[in-house]
């Protein structure tokens, strides 16, 4: 039985999605028939092989696929709208940032180098909501504090931030307009475990308090175990296994999942020298 049965109605439905890229030499079938659903207030974890198509799925839902890509089939519906069918203008006005926002995998590189951090967050707010810049600036400060960055550091330009600080600034920006779905692609890779725990606590809180839904992409299965209702494992463009953390960890059915679980370096035992 599906672990998602008791989660109620789906907010995002991805059905039989297929996406390819074309290069000079080849056609790469990056996503090869993927179907899944994300429910309101649910955290859906996506893990798996490097190069298996996780970011491509994210880019598709965000309508940020590059020019050399093509969608070969499938549907993506968000709250009843087929978001692959609507025009760019409509997507931008109704969905991007306000309802679907993202922490991209290249988060450390996602900020504009020439603007101060709080200014960038504030502008993201003012372009999507009717607020004055002054109010947005003070909200930007609050958002930064939420991710553990002192307000006054908002004066800095991106190059003055450490890797993990940039990552947190992008998380703050993604949460600025209270989205209903956050697609976070490896949002905590650059964070120490204490800071990571704080960010995860924040996301969990937004999830239970405001019904935030998440697609959380990571290689760290222990994060997904603590955060997600459902975990999907990707391998070569396909979701090869989808289950609740409990059953995934108890009896993985796909050999690749088993391999992932087995190769985890164990902090208790580890390499003997």
């Amino acid at each position, binding site marked *: 039985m599906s672990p998602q049965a008791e989660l109620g109605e789906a907010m995002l439905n991805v059905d039989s999605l297929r996406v390819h890229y074309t290069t000079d030499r080849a056609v790469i079938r990056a996503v090869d028939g993927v179907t899944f659903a994300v429910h309101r207030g649910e955290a859906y974890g996506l893990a798996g092989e*490097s190069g298996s198509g996780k970011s491509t799925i994210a880019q598709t839902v965000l309508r940020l696929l590059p020019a050399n890509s093509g969608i070969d089939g499938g549907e993506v519906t968000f709250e009843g709208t087929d978001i692959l069918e609507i025009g760019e203008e409509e997507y931008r006005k109704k969905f991007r940032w306000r309802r679907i926002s993202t922490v991209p995998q290249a988060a450390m590189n996602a900020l504009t180098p020439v603007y101060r951090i709080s200014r960038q967050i504030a502008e993201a707010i003012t372009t999507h909501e009717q607020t004055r810049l002054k109010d947005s600036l003070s909200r930007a400060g609050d958002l930064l504090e939420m991710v553990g960055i002192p307000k006054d550091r908002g004066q800095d330009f991106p190059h003055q931030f*450490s890797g993990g600080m940039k990552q947190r600034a992008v998380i703050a920006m993604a949460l600025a307009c209270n989205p209903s779905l956050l697609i976070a692609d*490896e949002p905590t890779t650059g*964070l*120490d475990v204490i800071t990571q725990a704080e960010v995860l606590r924040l996301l969990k809180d937004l999830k239970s308090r405001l019904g935030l839904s998440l697609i959380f992409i990571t290689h760290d299965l222990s994060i997904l175990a603590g955060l997600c209702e459902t975990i999907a494992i990707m391998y070569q463009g396909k979701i090869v296994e989808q289950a609740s953390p409990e059953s*995934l960890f108890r009896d993985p059915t796909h050999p690749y999942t088993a391999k992932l679980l087995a190769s985890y370096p164990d902090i208790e035992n*580890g390499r003997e020298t």
Partner: protein
Amino acid sequence: MERAVRTSCRVICTKNTENQALEHNESVLLQVQNLSKAFRKSRTLLQTLKGRAEHVKAIDGVTFEVLKGEVLGLVGESGSGKTTLGRVILRLEEPDSGSIRFEESDYTSVKDRSTMKEFRRKMQMIFQDPFDSINPRMNVRDVIEEPLRIHNVGSGEEERTQLIRRSLEDVRVNPPEDYLDRYPHELSGGQRQRIAIARTLVLKPSFIVADEPVSMLDVSVRMELLNLMLDLKDRYGLTYLFITHDLAVAKYVCDRIAVMQSGKIVELGPAVQIIHNPQHPYTKALRAAVPVMKPHPH
């Protein structure tokens, strides 16, 4: 002098490592003494008018040694100065004060370009952000060939192509032909990260600062690459300063681990001890925050 520096260091060092370092003094590869680097904070107009110049002490009087052939881990809070320390050691960033000795010679005062280049050939960095550190206008072949050309490694086209292909296979970007002509934006995050590793390893430098080198890789590939790095270390006697936020990874690859907080090294000792018997309160907190690999009941 030696002694004076040691006693002034506020690091919690275990007797064990201290003795080790003293006894095998000849095997010290890198000696960092009292290294500091501050950055000016951005200021608001008001602060400028008040004339306040505030600084972020990114690294604040750091002293430690790296032994030849060891993997020294560097863990710690986000923003605590790990990347800056790595960059300053390689002089990609100039220190405000302190000294760096590499292979018994003073690297801090080197000025002329050819000596600098000699050092650079031996000391390399794998950068934290593979989206930022790889030239977007170069294809994979050029990205890996560049360091070979700069440092005159490999005689001629053919040998270099061989080296490039080998290094791609090493980092599990397979088969190489499928990737040689691709540009960085045509690769997944983890593939880019592996290109960044290949680009550094291909030179076989004697000292590598690896800044979160495997953060974007699935555990199975991650373990293969960690083993590759350990294997190269054994075969070529490489030495690593290994920056990571993953304590399990740190324990797996590191001989010793240094813990940073607010620009200072607060604890340094054998990996096993840092993980299983941390002394400094920050290290204890770090250890306690490691997520356990168990699903929580909802």
